[in-house]
């Protein structure tokens, strides 16, 4: 009795979707693969866009899509346990049904600005989720883009998500380097130790790249400062933001930063544009 066949269906009405698989990433992060009841992905989208997942009667929450738009079989979401909807999601089994609506918001400019450019991805913790969508999209269209550097940090090795991609898949791609770091030294970790912002400076990468940054607010803030210190201009940096959202379509009135709605005008912002907005995020 899904109502999706009705004409003029409102954008607030979700479609039914099935949890096809659950991959545990860390102690509190898992990646959910979601398909329509008939199989296949619920909708097309571009990297950076989000979707609203609902679990009646708990409610809805918005998540960035972590799979690549080139993936036709499913949508993936890497979700951290941090509220009632996410707690419930984590307790669900494969085959359970949820609601999904979207895609929402703008996207990273993969079809224009990023084309042919050298790219620098900077992610912290679960912040890799939206960037992974872009990275895998680029890997599937590798010749359209220049070099790819990925700086990814987490509190500890156990907190690094998408280990298959960061350890095995991405490092094997042409002109692609992955720079991992963890906040504190631990036994068995032979990689870099230190926070992402200082790692940016240590790496001494060329500053003619386009940088895409996502992570916890403090990492974004200090990461931007570090990028500027090594000579990046704000026009070269994109980030993606997260605020409380309910409708996802720019009407419910709570996710605005100044006159921009993160759900509609974002979540991707170029940093010089962000600078024009009030400091309230």
């Amino acid at each position, binding site marked *: 009795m899904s109502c999706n066949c009705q004409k*003029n269906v409102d954008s607030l009405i979700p479609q039914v979707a099935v949890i096809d698989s659950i991959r545990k990433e860390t102690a509190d992060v898992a990646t959910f693969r979601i398909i329509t009841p008939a199989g296949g992905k619920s909708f097309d989208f571009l990297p950076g866009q989000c979707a609203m997942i609902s679990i*009646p009667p708990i409610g809805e929450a918005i998540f960035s899509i972590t799979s690549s738009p080139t993936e036709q079989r499913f949508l993936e979401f890497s979700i951290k346990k941090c509220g009632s909807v996410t707690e419930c999601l984590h307790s669900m089994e494969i085959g359970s049904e949820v609601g999904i609506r979207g895609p929402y918001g703008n996207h990273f400019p993969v079809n224009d600005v990023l084309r042919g450019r050298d790219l620098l991805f900077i992610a912290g913790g679960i912040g890799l989720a939206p960037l992974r969508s872009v990275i895998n999209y680029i890997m599937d269209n590798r010749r359209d883009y220049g070099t790819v550097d990925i700086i990814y940090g987490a509190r500890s090795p156990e907190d690094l998500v998408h280990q298959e991609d960061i350890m095995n898949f991405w490092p094997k791609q042409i002109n692609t380097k992955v720079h991992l770091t963890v906040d504190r030294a631990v036994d068995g970790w032979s990689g870099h130790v230190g926070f992402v912002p200082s790692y940016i400076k240590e790496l001494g990468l060329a500053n003619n790249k386009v940088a895409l940054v996502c992570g916890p607010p403090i990492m974004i803030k200090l990461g931007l400062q570090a990028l500027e210190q090594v000579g990046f201009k704000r026009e070269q940096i994109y980030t993606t933001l997260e605020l409380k959202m*309910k409708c996802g379509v720019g009407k419910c009135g709570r996710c605005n930063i100044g006159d921009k709605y993160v759900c509609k005008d974002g979540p991707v912002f170029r940093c010089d544009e962000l600078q024009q907005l009030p400091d309230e995020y």
Partner: protein
Amino acid sequence: MKQVYKRDLERLWQTISEHFELYLPLEQDGKVNFMPWKQGENVNIDRLKTDLSPKNIIFPPTETYLKFRTVNKRLCFESVGGKNDKYVVFGMRPCDAASYSILDKVFLQEPIDRFYEERRTNGIIISLACSEPEETCFCSSFGIAADNPVLGTDIAAWDIGESILWQPKSEKGKKLTGILDNILQDTSEHEIIALERLQQSIREKLAQLPWVDLDLEIISNNMKEMFESKVWEELSKSCLGCGVCTFVCPTCHCFDIQDFGAERNGERFRCWDSCMYSDFTRMAHGNPRKTQTERFRQRFMHKLVYFLNNNGVYACVGCGRCVEKCPVNMNIVKVIKKLGGD
């Protein structure tokens, strides 16, 4: 131009209600609000403005729009929002009618809100000019003519004493006028003169109001500068963080979405919410608007800057309800004056 004699009003309402749901300003326990009319109700069309704005007719305080149930582990969604009944609102003031055109800019913008659209399409608004504008009115600052209902209006009406003049402004308005053909009367030169006199008198009264000179142009259009202004802290000091200003406001439209029910059977509704509330932007990992100063600023920045930037109009119609209802006498007029370097 048609007219309806006041002695025929009851008959007019009766006839309308045979075809439509009819909303009228009804008086109950001293408060006047737009409510569905039936014979015998205490109608008060003389009270200038209703205590609550009539936005609830197109944007209900709570609207269940989705039902869900789980059958054999299969989830089913059913869209149940909107409203199919055709209705008429009689006696809405020009400011309130104009507020509908402001709400349209939010809900009829892509992606169109189908529930709202349905309510808007099904309604016919008869807007009554304000014979006696009050001292808390400042609609003229927002370009609204209290003597000549236009925005959001299907039929414009004027109370000239013995009768109410009636002028259809839209196709919907013309259709309704046709249905009421045997109650509405033709007008003569006499009524036209009376109308001109009334409009003249309304304009004179408006010119005498205390806030007639309230000038929106004095507000800087520099968003960041306004945001960082020192006035917010000072003005918000007495704000108690209740939501009365947002709920009586005809243009405030923020809403929340919540689920209600059990795992197998329940519903999802949206309901009015207020940017004045502490939980409005609170997330599991923090809140970008931690204090009342930030929440207070958001409300007025939204009305005077953000909404203007996005839609070309202010999100205020100068109805003055917030002025009358704020428990601590803080309101948009004071904010505007203060922002103008008062």
